[in-house]
């Protein structure tokens, strides 16, 4: 890929609520290069959204707090920046597209105003210049009649178009990093395809790094270069895209892959679900959060978090099961009959 843009090391974000301390993110590390797409995969309670918001320093304090970790953007640690400096980073160096386009746009402001805001703020352009750029941006993300559309209000846009407008807002200042938090979850599948295409195009054009947060492994397979799997606030496995799908080492990853119905399955096979419920972030065990749902649980799993084990180039996993046993277990799973290496 390109130059290293972002290095996150040991990020931990906790929420101090009356019900207890919620360890939403616990010791998460990852890197992002230029033109690279990192997929952060997880379900509810995984901590993926909180991790992204921690990066942007958008965690409400109180009750939340980034308690540990370094967030190196280039040679600066984002945690050490002042509020003023951080504001310059947001929208300019790192931009974010949120999940729900219905509520992420201000309903009482024209779309053009909202896009122009970031431009005026970060690039010091005049309002007229910014409006012209907004129209251009809307055009670039594929909205027809962009010149007219910038004067419209969000309610006049459909869901897909709003999401495009959000992407236009995000790329308005040529950010090095684009974070997309479940950008397609609220959209119809044919619109989803359009939006993914727009994100890919923008990435090509601006040569940015993209962090895609999603629970949809299909979308990940579509555009991610590498994947980080999160569960209960921790990273359980990270690997390149092919490795994650064809050579996964963590039982949670196996479980995810085995529980997905596939459009191209030839004969109907029974899904293998992961038993149990999503984790309760207040009552996390001190060891592996996947405890209770893992079919291969051992005595050490509940009490101690396993150290990182490197199983291949750029492929790491945190699991107590020894590697050879893991391969055995995996080979026995129906989903992996074809892919065992």
């Amino acid at each position, binding site marked *: 890929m390109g130059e290293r843009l972002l290095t996150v090391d040991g990020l931990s974000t906790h*929420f101090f*609520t*009356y*019900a207890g301390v*919620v360890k*939403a993110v616990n010791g998460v590390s990852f890197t992002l290069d230029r033109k690279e797409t990192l997929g952060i995969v997880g379900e*509810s*309670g*995984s*901590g*993926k*959204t*909180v991790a992204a*918001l921690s990066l942007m320093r*958008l*965690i*409400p304090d109180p*009750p*939340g707090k980034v308690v540990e970790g370094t967030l190196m953007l280039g040679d600066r640690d984002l945690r050490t920046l002042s509020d003023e400096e951080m504001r310059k980073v947001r929208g300019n160096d790192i931009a974010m597209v949120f999940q729900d386009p219905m509520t992420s746009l201000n309903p009482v402001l024209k779309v053009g105003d909202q896009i122009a805001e970031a431009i005026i703020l970060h690039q010091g352009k005049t309002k007229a210049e910014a409006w012209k750029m907004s129209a251009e941006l809307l055009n670039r993300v594929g909205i027809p009649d962009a010149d007219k559309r910038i004067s419209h209000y969000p309610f006049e846009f459909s869901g897909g178009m709003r999401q495009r407008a959000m992407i236009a807002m995000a790329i308005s200042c040529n950010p090095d990093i684009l974070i997309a938090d479940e950008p397609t979850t609220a959209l119809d599948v044919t619109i989803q395809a359009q939006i993914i295409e727009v994100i890919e195009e923008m990435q090509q054009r601006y040569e940015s790094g993209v962090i895609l947060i999603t629970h949809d492994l299909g979308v990940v397979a579509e555009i991610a270069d590498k994947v980080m799997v999160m569960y209960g606030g921790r990273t359980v496995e990270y690997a390149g895209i092919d490795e994650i799908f064809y050579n996964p080492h963590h039982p949670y990853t196996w479980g995810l892959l085995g529980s997905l119905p596939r459009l191209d399955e030839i004969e109907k096979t029974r899904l293998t*679900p992961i*038993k*149990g*419920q*999503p*984790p*309760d*972030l*207040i*009552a996390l065990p001190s060891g592996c959060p996947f405890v*209770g*749902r893992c079919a291969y649980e051992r005595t050490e799993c509940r009490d101690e978090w396993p150290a990182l084990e490197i199983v291949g180039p750029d492929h790491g996993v945190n699991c107590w099961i020894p590697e050879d046993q893991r391969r055995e277990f995996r080979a026995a799973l129906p989903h992996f009959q074809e892919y065992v290496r």
Partner: protein
Amino acid sequence: MSERDTSGNIITTDVSISTVGERELVEDQFSGRSPLGLWADTWRRLRRNHLAVVGMCIIIVFLALGITQEFANLVGLNTGDPGTGYLAPYDPNAVNYELSPNGLGSAPSWSHPFGTDYLGRDVFSRTLVATRISMLVGVIAVAIALFLGLILGPVSGYYGGWVDSVIMRTADVFFAFPYILFVLLIMTVLGPGLWNVFIAIGILGWATYARLNRGSVLSVKAMEYVEAARAQGASDLRIIFRHVLPNTMAPIYVAIAMGIGGAIVTEAALSYLGIGIQPPDASWGKMISDYLTYLQAGSWWMVTFPSVALTVSVFGFISFGNGLRDATDPKLKE
């Protein structure tokens, strides 16, 4: 502890408190889905609001006093005559000219902490016994209004159409009239008397509860659990009163607290104007009305203590109501 489901998969049946989702934490804390359940969470937030807690204590004290006085009244305590009893250091109606030398009563003293009025009657006892009236009015008038409002409101909201239009336009009429004048009108028609006061105040209050409730009903009736009930063959009646109404009650509780406060004040106003209750019943309003002229003559204690009682009790209800409203508002950040 674990069980097997029908697929033979092991599922844990330990039900922990429902998960504290990330989105809730970050965007909208306690967005209605509290980990502890609605009432526990409400109580916790209420406790933190000191004014509301004070209000709650005041309410408890006054309601307790009112209940004891009502009980004493019914039983005929101290008089032997049911319907006239009281529980106080002195008989509130016992006239004693010696204690009112100039016809101006006597100032507060150790034996009469609130002093005596122009007829020598103990002001403390009178104030205490009058609590009964105020609390009765508050509770019964609101109960009448609630009963009407919580039938008309849900019916209006659930059925919509012309039923809704008719009921809501009628409520509008009630709202449009100046409240006191309307109450006066009804009292003139009905004549004075305690029960008439209840009815007059209560009958006008339905509009508030109906309209308030109708709004909640509109959003609740679109919920899927209402559809589910319909799919199971539930009758409209069952749906309205078993599914819809219980889920619209949160703002109603607040309105009740405020309503009681309002009813107490209205009764005081009516009695002050002379068309509320009649002697020998005494309410704070009546006392204020009777004693106001004596203020100029320097006998401040007669008016002051009933006024304070009135103010404090209403303050209690309103503060508690406010606190309750804040505590049940899921969007209010702490």
